[in-house]
C-alpha cells in the first residue's frame, strides 16, 4: 500500500512540476462566448444600421414623410392591429374554452384541427379569398343564386379589399396562436379551482369569466402578441387588399423610390410597435409561470346533448373552415383544374420550387448551427462568472423573431453593401479581379437574413433539449476522460437529435414561406415559391399561383402536426 517514504523528495518535485502545468481555469467557455457574441452582434447589426441609415436623410425628408406618408400608414397599422387583436382573441379564447369545457361530437378532431390555419401564410389566405369572394366568384354567385338576384349590381358583399377585409382574413389565420397558448393553459388549470368556484355559488358562465379567464390572461397575452407580430410582419395580405400599412410603406419607399433613408425611418417607427409587443409577450410569460398548476387533475368537459351539441360543433368548426378548409380546397381545385388543362407546370415554377428548397435547406443548416452555439454557450457558462454575458447573448440572439421581415431586410442592406465592398477590395488585392456582389448577388444574404429571423426557433429548441439532459451525464463523460467538446459530440448531440429534428422542420417551413424579407433581399431574377406567388397576385394573373400556394400550404401542414403532438399531446 502506498509509496515508500524515501520517495518523498521526488514526489515534492513532481508536485511542483505539475503545479506549473496546471491549465488555467477556463472550460473552453471563451470560444463559445465569442461565437455567441458574434451571433448576437449579427442580430443587432440591422437595427444599428437602420438608425444610421435613418439619420442619413435630411430633416426635410422626415417632415415630408411625417406629413404625407406616416399619418395614414400609422392609422392603418394601428387599426389593423386593433381589429386583428379583437378577432384573434375572441376566436382563440372562445375555441379553446369550447373544446376544454364542453364535450360534443368531433371535439377530439376539432382540438387539433383548430391549429390548421397556421399552415396558411397570410398572403396566401388573402390571395385565395380575393378570388373566392370576388363579386363574380363562386361564393357571391351562390349567394345571389340562392337569393334570386342575377347581377352583382343588385347584390354584392362588402369589398374584401378594405381594412375590414384584411382584419377578416388575418384574424382567421392568426387566431391559432391565441388558441394554442390558451388551450394549453386551460388544460393545466386545476379542476379543483373551478369546482371551488362552483361550490361558492358561481354558475358555469361565471366560472369562465371570474376564474378561468383571469387565470388564462397571461397565456392570451402571449398568443396575442405573437399573432400581432405576424400581422406587423405581413406584407402580402395588406398589399393585395390595398391596405397601406407601415410595412407596405417601407417596401414601396425602397422599391419604387429607392429612398433608403425614408424606408429606414418608417422601419424605425415600426420598431416602436415591435417593442410594445415584445413587452406584452414577456409580461405574459412571466405571469404564466405562476398561474401554471401542473400535475393536477384537469377539468372534465361537460357532455352536451342534442341541439346544444350541434350548435357547439358548428361554432367550433367555423374558424377551421374559414381559415383553412375553404382556402385549401380552393387552391386544390384550382391546381387540379390548371394541371388538367395545361398538363404540367411551367419551368419557371419548377425553378422557383428548386430555389425554395435549396435556400430553405441552407437556412436550416445555418440557423441550427447558430442556435446550437448560442444555447451551448449559455449552458457552458452557467457555472462560470461570465454567465450574465452569455445570457445577454442568448436574449439578443432570440430577438430576431420579433423583427418584421421588411424591417430586417432594410436594416441588412447597409451591412451587406459594406460586406460586399470589403470582399471585393480583398479579392481584388489578392486575385486582381473583383467578383461582384457576393452577399447580395447570391443567396448568401437571404440565408443570413433567414438565420437571424428564425434563430429564436433553433435556440429555443436546443435550450429546451439541453435542459432535459441531466448534468450528471456530462460529468460522467468528463470523468471518463472526454473533453468538453467531445462530450458535446458524443453525449449531447445524439440526445438532442429529436429536438434538432423538430427545430429543422420548423425553420425549414418558415424559411420556405417567408415573403417580406425575400422580396427585398433576393438576387436578381431569383424567385422562390412565395415571391412567384406574390408576383402572380400583384399582376392579377392567377395562373400558376395556386400551385405554388398549395405547395407552401402542404409543407406548412408538417409543423402543425408536430405542434399538435408536442403541445396538445395529440397522437401520443
Amino acid at each position, binding site marked *: 500500500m502506498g509509496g515508500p*517514504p524515501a520517495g518523498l523528495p521526488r514526489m515534492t518535485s513532481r*508536485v511542483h512540476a505539475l*503545479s506549473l502545468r496546471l491549465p488555467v481555469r477556463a472550460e473552453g467557455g471563451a470560444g463559445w462566448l465569442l461565437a455567441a457574441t458574434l451571433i448576437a452582434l449579427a442580430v443587432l447589426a440591422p437595427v444599428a444600421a437602420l438608425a444610421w441609415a435613418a439619420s442619413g436623410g435630411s430633416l426635410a425628408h422626415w417632415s415630408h414623410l411625417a406629413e404625407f406618408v406616416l399619418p395614414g400608414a400609422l392609422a392603418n397599422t394601428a387599426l389593423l392591429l386593433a381589429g386583428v387583436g379583437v378577432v384573434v382573441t375572441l376566436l382563440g379564447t372562445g375555441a379553446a374554452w369550447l373544446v376544454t369545457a364542453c364535450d360534443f361530437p368531433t371535439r377530439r378532431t376539432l382540438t387539433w384541427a383548430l391549429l390548421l390555419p397556421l399552415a396558411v401564410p397570410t398572403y396566401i389566405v388573402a390571395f385565395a379569398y380575393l378570388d373566392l369572394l370576388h363579386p363574380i366568384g363562386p361564393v357571391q354567385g351562390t349567394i345571389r343564386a340562392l337569393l334570386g338576384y342575377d347581377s352583382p349590381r343588385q347584390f354584392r358583399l362588402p369589398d374584401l379589399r378594405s381594412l375590414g377585409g384584411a382584419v377578416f382574413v388575418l384574424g382567421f389565420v392568426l387566431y391559432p396562436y391565441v388558441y394554442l397558448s390558451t388551450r394549453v393553459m386551460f388544460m393545466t388549470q386545476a379542476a379543483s379551482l373551478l369546482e371551488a368556484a362552483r361550490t361558492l355559488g358561481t354558475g358555469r358562465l361565471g366560472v369562465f369569466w371570474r376564474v378561468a379567464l383571469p387565470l388564462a390572461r397571461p397565456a392570451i397575452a402571449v398568443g396575442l402578441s405573437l399573432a400581432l407580430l405576424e400581422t406587423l410582419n405581413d406584407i402580402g395580405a395588406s398589399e393585395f387588399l390595398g391596405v397601406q400599412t407601415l410595412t407596405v410603406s417601407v417596401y414601396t419607399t425602397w422599391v419604387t423610390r429607392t429612398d433608403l433613408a425614408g424606408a429606414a425611418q418608417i422601419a424605425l417607427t415600426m420598431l416602436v410597435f415591435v417593442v410594445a409587443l415584445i413587452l406584452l409577450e414577456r409580461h405574459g410569460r412571466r405571469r404564466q409561470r405562476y398561474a401554471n398548476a401542473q400535475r393536477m387533475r384537469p377539468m372534465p368537459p361537460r357532455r352536451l346533448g342534442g341541439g346544444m351539441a350541434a350548435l357547439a360543433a358548428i361554432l367550433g368548426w367555423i374558424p377551421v373552415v374559414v381559415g383553412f378548409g375553404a382556402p385549401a380546397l380552393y387552391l386544390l381545385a384550382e391546381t387540379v383544374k390548371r394541371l388538367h388543362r395545361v398538363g404540367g407546370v411551367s419551368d419557371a415554377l419548377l425553378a422557383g420550387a428548386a430555389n425554395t428548397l435549396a435556400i430553405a435547406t441552407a437556412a436550416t443548416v445555418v440557423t441550427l448551427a447558430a442556435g446550437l452555439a448560442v444555447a451551448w454557450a449559455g449552458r457552458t457558462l452557467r457555472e462560470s462568472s461570465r454567465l450574465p454575458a452569455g445570457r445577454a447573448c442568448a436574449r439578443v440572439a432570440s430577438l430576431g423573431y420579433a423583427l418584421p421581415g421588411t424591417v430586417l431586410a432594410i436594416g441588412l442592406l447597409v451591412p451587406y453593401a459594406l460586406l460586399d465592398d470589403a470582399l471585393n477590395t480583398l479579392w481584388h488585392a489578392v486575385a486582381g479581379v473583383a467578383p461582384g456582389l457576393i452577399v447580395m448577388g447570391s443567396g448568401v444574404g437571404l440565408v443570413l437574413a433567414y438565420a437571424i429571423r428564425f434563430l429564436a426557433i433553433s435556440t429555443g429548441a436546443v435550450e429546451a433539449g439541453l435542459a432535459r439532459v441531466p448534468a*450528471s451525464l456530462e460529468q460522467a463523460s468528463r*470523468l471518463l476522460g472526454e473533453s468538453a467538446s467531445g462530450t458535446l459530440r*458524443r453525449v449531447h448531440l445524439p440526445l438532442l437529435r429529436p429536438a434538432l429534428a423538430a427545430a429543422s422542420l420548423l425553420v425549414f417551413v418558415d424559411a420556405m414561406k417567408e415573403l417580406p424579407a425575400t422580396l427585398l433581399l433576393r438576387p436578381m431574377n431569383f424567385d422562390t415559391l412565395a415571391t412567384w406567388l406574390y408576383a402572380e397576385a400583384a399582376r392579377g394573373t392567377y395562373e400558376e399561383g395556386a400551385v405554388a400556394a398549395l405547395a407552401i400550404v402542404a409543407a406548412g401542414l408538417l409543423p402543425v402536426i408536430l405542434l399538435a403532438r408536442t403541445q396538445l399531446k395529440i397522437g401520443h
Partner: protein
Amino acid sequence: MTALLDIDRIHLAYDTAAGLHSVVEDFSLGLERGEIGCLLGASGCGKTTVLRAVAGFEPVRRGSISLDGAVLSSPAGMVLPERRRVGMMFQDYALFPHLTVGENVAFGLRRRARAERRARVAEMLGLVGLAEVGDSYPHELSGGQQQRVALARALAPEPELLLLDEPFSNLDVDTRERLAFEVREILKATGHTAILVTHNQAEAFAIADRIGVMAKGRIAQWDSPYNLHHHPADDFVAEFIRRDALADQRARVFERGARKAAAR
C-alpha cells in the same frame, strides 16, 4: 507513508448573487491506496460538494487536493476533470441512454485498440456479473443492474480513485444491502481506492474502512468504524452514531415483527 488522496484544509464555496456562500471549511482527510473511505452526514452538510471538488467540478477557494502526490486542485488552478484519472458513480447512475450497456462501459476506453477495448468491456461486465446484457439499453435493466453497469463503466478506464455519490439511495432496502457488500467485494478484489458519500449509517459501516462524520461543512471525526463507536471524538459524534444506531435497531425490531406478522 503518503496518502493516495490528500485533501489539505480546503474551503469550498458557491458563487451567489450575494457573494460567496461558504459550504465547506477547513476540511482535511487522507486516504491510503486500496482503502474505502466514506463521508457520512445529513443532507446539506457539504459531503457531496467535497466529492464534486475531488472530481474537479468545484473550485477550491483555499487549500489543495492531491492524488498520488500530484496537485489536482488549488486556488492557483485545477486539472480538468477528464485528466484526473478519477472515476465516479452517480446517484442517478448517469448511464448514457442512447448507448448500449457495452458502449457505455467502452465510453472511457476510446484511446485503446478495438480488440483491447472489447476484451476490457467483457472483463468488466463479467466482474459485475452482467456478461450477457452488453447489447441491451440501460432502460431495459433493473435499478440494481443499472447500478452495476455504472460501476463497470467507472472502473473500466482504471481510475486511481473511485467516487460514489449516494450510489444506493435509489434502490429498495434488500437490493441496497446486497449491493453494498457486492461493491465492497469488487473494490477489494481489484484493489481500488474509493470514497463513498451517504447519509445512511448502515451503508457506511457495511462498506467503508474509514468513515468521516460530517456536519455543517466540517469533518467531526475521520476514523475507523470501530473507533467511531468506541472512541467518539466528541459528543456530537457520539450522539450521531448512537441515535442512528438506535433508529437502526428500532427498524430491525419493527421489520422482524412485520415478518412474524406476515408469517402468521
